[in-house]
């Protein structure tokens, strides 16, 4: 059952075995697994609840306006020679899974080995994770993008990669019967993308989970080291004004508000401060698109939103992947005004996009800003800058090999190149990273997992060090950058946390969550 904010007309108090804060990739998995195990679960989600009947008919701007945090422009402020990075983070029931590209990768083995060897997290071995991966992938109906969904630009890039001897492959995505309308970023109008809204949360509801939308968790109630519940504020969806209070009594609280807001909730509640790691170690997978213009039309919006990736450079921490956001965003991110803007617009059918994303060793930090707004900062290290520029250069090379007439780089100078030899101008020593237009969709690591309480916020099973009953199960626990889209990693880790929780920390179920009364 999903209860929206306007259905809560007074202060309410409810009792449940588990209270989950956040309904994205992590929270939905925990809710589903625990409710299936027979426990009463209440989910609190700050965003609203929308279905394909809503976002399926919205224009992109409205989707950006409603489904994203801060209209899709949550800034991570660059410190030093670092670009300001805009984070795309969902804010709705289903979280970012409703608005992501649906790309599914298992956590690379070398990353798991690194976590085991360097951080001592021996529980997350490939064998141990496999069961969780299988579970998540079957739930999300992950499958390979069929050939007919590649657009013309991708076909040319595939051929170019073959000529250059670069390995690449069609992506795995949690999309079934895709209509190729290329608007995954704004909410799939056909629910072909199997977001957690139509998979895990639907299933969780059938097991009795109550989901409160428009409800911001503000206070984690505790007595000493024991968690007693959560106090939340029901907010007006249109204005963001707090209306009523909702109190959830539960001895287990699972924080899954995402890598930006989970540390914010901890910091606002002055919890888990001993490690000094809350809000630190933010990695984002900095990414950028390179556009290319062909002589003939390629209609890049006809096909899958994302369908193909070059894997050749993954050992270097570079992933090249196709992405076509929308003509509006493509034209908005290309330079120029007046005549040049007109020319670009007239040739929009000829312009394709391909992205480069890096696995970052640089880190950022989340701090509390005004009210419930986070202040996010990020400092890009020189080695990541070099890697990032190399990724852009590789995409440029591929475009020229594919026959592009000119390419558009996401930086003011040099912005447009017409010959492959001009790519030599992408020189880390000469280009200021701060002037590159950079985005990111994968914030991770701000409450990282680890063995040592002084160097990590949660243990290998998601429990916050030193607090009984508080768990974290979202991207914030992922200890380092994973070098691939992290949806499956986050969900698999959340699955294991939920399984463990069901096995060890939750006693007999108290039945379904129940309304205790009203107050105030």
């Amino acid at each position, binding site marked *: 059952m999903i209860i929206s904010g306007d259905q809560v007309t007074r202060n309410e108090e409810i009792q449940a075995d588990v209270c989950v804060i956040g309904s994205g990739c992590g929270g939905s998995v925990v809710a589903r697994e625990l409710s299936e195990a027979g426990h009463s679960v209440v989910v609190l989600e700050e965003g609203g609840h929308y279905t394909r009947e809503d976002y399926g*008919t919205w224009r992109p701007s409205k989707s950006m*306006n409603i489904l994203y945090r801060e209209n899709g422009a949550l800034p991570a402020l660059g410190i030093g020679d670092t670009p300001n990075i805009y984070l795309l983070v969902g804010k709705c029931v289903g979280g970012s899974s409703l608005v992501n590209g649906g790309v599914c990768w298992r956590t690379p083995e070398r990353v798991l080995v690194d976590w085991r060897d360097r951080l001592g997290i021996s529980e997350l071995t490939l064998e141990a994770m496999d069961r969780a991966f299988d579970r998540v992938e079957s739930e999300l109906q992950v499958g390979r993008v069929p050939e007919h969904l590649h657009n013309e630009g991708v076909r040319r890039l595939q051929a170019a990669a073959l000529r250059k001897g670069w390995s690449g492959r069609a992506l795995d995505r949690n999309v079934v019967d895709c209509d*190729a309308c290329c608007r995954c970023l704004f909410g799939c109008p*056909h629910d072909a993308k199997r977001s957690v809204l139509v998979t895990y949360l639907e299933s969780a509801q059938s097991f009795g989970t109550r989901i409160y939308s428009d409800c911001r968790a503000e206070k984690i109630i505790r007595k000493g080291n024991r968690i007693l519940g959560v106090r939340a504020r029901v907010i007006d969806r249109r204005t963001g004004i707090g209306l009523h209070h909702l109190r959830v009594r539960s001895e287990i609280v699972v924080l899954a508000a995402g890598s930006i807001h989970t540390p914010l909730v901890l910091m606002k509640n002055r919890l888990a401060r001993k490690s000094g790691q809350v809000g630190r170690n933010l990695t984002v997978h900095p990414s950028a698109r390179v556009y290319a213009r062909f002589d003939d039309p390629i209609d890049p919006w006809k096909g899958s939103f994302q369908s193909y990736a070059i894997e050749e450079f993954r050992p270097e921490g570079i992933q090249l992947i196709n992405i076509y956001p929308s003509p509006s965003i493509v034209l908005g991110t290309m330079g120029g005004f007046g005549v040049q803007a007109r020319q670009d617009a007239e040739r929009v059918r000829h312009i394709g996009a391909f992205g480069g994303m890096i696995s970052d060793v640089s880190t950022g930090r989340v701090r509390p800003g005004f009210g419930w707004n986070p202040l996010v900062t990020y400092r890009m290290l020189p080695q990541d800058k070099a890697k990032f520029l190399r990724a852009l250069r590789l995409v440029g090379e591929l475009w020229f090999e594919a026959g592009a007439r000119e390419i558009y780089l996401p930086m003011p100078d040099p912005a447009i190149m017409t010959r492959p030899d001009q790519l030599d101008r992408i020189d880390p020593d000469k280009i200021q990273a701060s002037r590159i237009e950079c985005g990111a969709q994968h914030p991770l690591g701000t409450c990282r997992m680890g063995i040592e309480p002084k160097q990590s916020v949660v243990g290998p099973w998601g429990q916050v060090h030193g607090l009984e009953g508080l768990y974290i199960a979202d991207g914030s626990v992922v200890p380092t950058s994973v070098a691939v889209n992290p949806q499956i990693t986050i969900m698999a880790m959340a699955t294991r946390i939920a399984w463990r929780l069901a096995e060890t920390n939750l006693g007999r179920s108290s039945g379904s969550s129940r309304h205790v009364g009203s107050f105030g």
Partner: protein
Amino acid sequence: MIFATFVIDPPALFLVGVLYALMLVHVEWRSPTLSLAGPFGWGWLFVGGFYALAILCYQRAPAWMTMYFLPDETSWSVWVLGYLGLVLYAVPYALGFVVGVGARRRSPWVLGIVIFSSLGVLFWVGITVLDRYQVVGTREEFLAGTARPLWDHTELMRLLLLGTLGLSAWVVGGIGLALRNRRRRLLDPDQILQAFSPVRRRVVQAFACRLFPVGIGSAHHAGKMDLGEEMSRYMVRMPWMNRVGLGLMFDLIQFWPYVVRRKPGRFTSLCASEQDRVLHAMESSRSVIVQSIFHILKVALCLLYWERPEVLAEVGAVYHGKGEHRSGWEGPE
């Protein structure tokens, strides 16, 4: 002698009256009238309290109370001081109102300058008579240099503290009332929420006309759409920090020509080619903050303009969809 004398500041009060009127003008300048009963009445409540205190003090120490204007101690009645109070509030109010309406009609900036100047005068007066604030005694004592410092007079200080607390409570209460009214207004579903002022919306509109010039989507040229209004509604859900940042960006665009162009003028008053130059200069600005906020602004505008199916169709971008939920590009607004 607790109330041997007391501090009252007619010149400052005079200016408060002017300022109060000037600020009211900003709210009501389109239909100016002196009989703005509501604000005028609230002003009376404030000034009334102030004068009640003044009259009380006058009874105790008439010499000091009139020393600003009178060469010698004069025995004035309470009614005279009350009358002065009326004049000191009503006349400055009227004066401020007349000046304010004239200034606002010229430009909000002129009004701002007048208010700013008045504040300057207020501080100047305060500094000029600072020594008289700081001592307590009769006029003679003051002139003889035997008056005591104000801060040594604990009972008087207590009274001043209470007065300050009362005044603060009044101000805080007023702010609370304003916030409550704002909240009620926001919760009204018929209220159209806007993020930016009309001036800023005009800047956005002018910007949009350069971004989407005649020639693309000529049937749907940005000049025929109110993108400023759309942008304002689009941004209204952003956190206030972002709105402030973008709002300042619009101001920066509007006044950037004063910084970089030889022919100064506001952005909205420049010709198309000059506007293009200004926008190019901002896009390639060396300031990372300017560059990145400008980038968001441009993307947001493009998002609003290029999502229209009819505009996209003019450049050949036709989306398809199937089933009952056709692609949202073609959906209703």
